């Protein structure tokens, strides 16, 4: 996903200082040559101990069985188990379905909200921006519990309102597709504000004159939106979408707490499946193998997303 050296957003035009720094650098003493390594050291140390090593170790776990602190090699047995487990495919289906619905909905909402918050001379913008962002602050456990209570069939406030309006309460957590909907609603509530702020910052980097020129040329608001705003936000949109897709593919806490995997595994996500295999059945080999299958899926999707949007750019 190396898109070339990223261009900084703020700060305006400035010298490409890498050249001059390099020159300055070469004149320095040995002490100075070690400086970057010193700056980097704490992070790299933690990275190797707590990230690189576990990743390598988990790769090894994929190919065998780990029981009572001893490891036996079994080849690709774990992978074939996962890839022939109907439950895994169910989890895959659930995760993808929810992702495919949630991400566009959330992105569209965030885009709309960001555009509205960008309107000039809107009083109270700052406060509204802060309020819209707030859902991110409520921790995952709390809001899962709250939403679980909202959508309770017998007593939840959602059904109570529906009944008040004359309808019948819906079996939110008992029907597969309704349970998925509850999760999508909850996740959208939580993350739209975050994405809104990200998009807002992108919006503020689109020069005003573009809009002015366009309206002088007679372009209406909607036309301006699609001709100026969306292309101008391209990088931001891609970033937000990639983040959201990744987040949805790795979904765990909300289904774990809200639906427990849903009625008959209807909201079981991939990571939930892995958690079950790893920390309920203690089959670390299968759980690791499954994790890497997930990694491949994420990598493939991300690569696809970037490729597709790069082609759009043309030349």
């Amino acid at each position, binding site marked *: 996903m190396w898109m070339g050296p990223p261009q900084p957003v703020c700060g305006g035009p400035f010298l490409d200082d890498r050249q001059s720094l390099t020159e300055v650098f070469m004149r320095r003493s040995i002490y100075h040559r070690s400086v970057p390594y010193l700056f980097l050291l704490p*992070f790299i140390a933690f*990275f190797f101990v707590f990230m690189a090593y576990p990743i390598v*170790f988990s790769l090894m776990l994929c190919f065998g069985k780990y029981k009572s602190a001893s490891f036996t090699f079994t080849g690709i047995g774990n992978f074939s188990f996962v890839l022939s487990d109907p439950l895994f495919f169910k989890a895959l289906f659930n995760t993808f379905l929810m992702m495919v619905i949630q991400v566009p909905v959330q992105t569209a909402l965030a885009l709309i909200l960001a555009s509205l918050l960008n309107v000039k001379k809107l009083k109270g913008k700052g406060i509204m921006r802060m309020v819209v962002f707030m859902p991110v602050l409520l921790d995952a456990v709390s809001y899962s519990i709250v939403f679980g209570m909202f959508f309770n069939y017998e007593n939840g406030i959602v059904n109570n309102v529906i009944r008040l309006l004359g309808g019948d309460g819906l079996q939110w957590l008992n029907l597969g597709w309704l349970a998925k909907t509850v999760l999508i609603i909850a996740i959208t509530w939580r993350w739209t504000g975050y994405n809104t702020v990200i998009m807002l910052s992108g919006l503020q980097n689109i020069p005003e004159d573009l809009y002015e020129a366009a309206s002088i040329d007679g372009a209406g608001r909607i036309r301006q939106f699609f001709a100026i705003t969306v292309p101008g936000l391209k990088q931001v949109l891609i970033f937000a979408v990639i983040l959201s897709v990744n987040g949805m593919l790795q979904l765990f806490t909300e289904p774990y707490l809200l639906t427990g995997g849903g009625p008959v595994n209807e909201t079981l996500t991939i990571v939930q499946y892995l958690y079950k295999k790893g920390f309920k059945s203690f089959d670390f080999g299968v759980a690791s193998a499954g994790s890497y299958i997930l990694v491949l899926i994420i990598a493939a999707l991300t690569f696809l997303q970037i490729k597709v949007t790069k082609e759009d750019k043309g030349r």
Partner: protein
Amino acid sequence: MKTKRNGFAYGILLVSCAVALFPFLWSAFAATHTNTQIYQIQWALRPGTRLLSNLKDLTASFPLGRNMFSSLFIALVYTLGILLIDSMAGFAFAKYEFKGKGFLFALCLMAMFIPTQVTLIPLFIEMTAFHMIDTYWSVILPGFASIFGVFLMRQNFMAFPGELMESARIDGAGDFRIFARIVIPTMKPALASLGILSFVNQWGNFMWPLITLNTKEKYTMPLVLSLMVQPGYVTNYGSVMAGAMLALLPVLVFFLLFQKNFIDGMLCGAVKG
């Protein structure tokens, strides 16, 4: 025309704000209700009378003071550590050329795409080997390997004008001094950004503390809340909501304190790659 458009904008924004706020308000009021009231529409946004007894129930089941301390300690130490470690690392990647830079950077980039779940089991085995299971450090230390912060800080540092550094260097200042005295003070928005995101993330961290913490006193607030609604536990929803509100307080305070800087910080970095 403009006022009509603005009115439209206001309308949608106000509705969104109401939707965003509703669960917060509901929870706050729910903390004062009994188990029956909590579900009734007429009590939805009205204060009840049971706040004190709900709080009492809450503290009776869990050593709440200890749990808040756990969450605060873990989140604060983690945030401070991340700010230090990631700003140094981001600075190195942004402002220096050195052997292995490309390789290390590519490594970090690749690791960013490995979901955390992949490392959970090996981490767990590692922590057991280090005899660190059930300690605060088992939660804090692995978090320092997170790459997001490094990227964010690197992004921001790249925007810092190199000439300032060069002139300081010509004046004879050492690199660490340049870093601490000149560069960092201008990075407040980025630091606020990273700080808030890290704090909020670590505060709400559920899966890993669930796995590694075993003593009741060490549980973080999310763990406490999740335990209170488990089967086998007599659930007083009012007290769960009271707990949720208590858990929200530090995060809210932190956020309100730094939010102005935070938005500026998001502007300068989180946006691109």
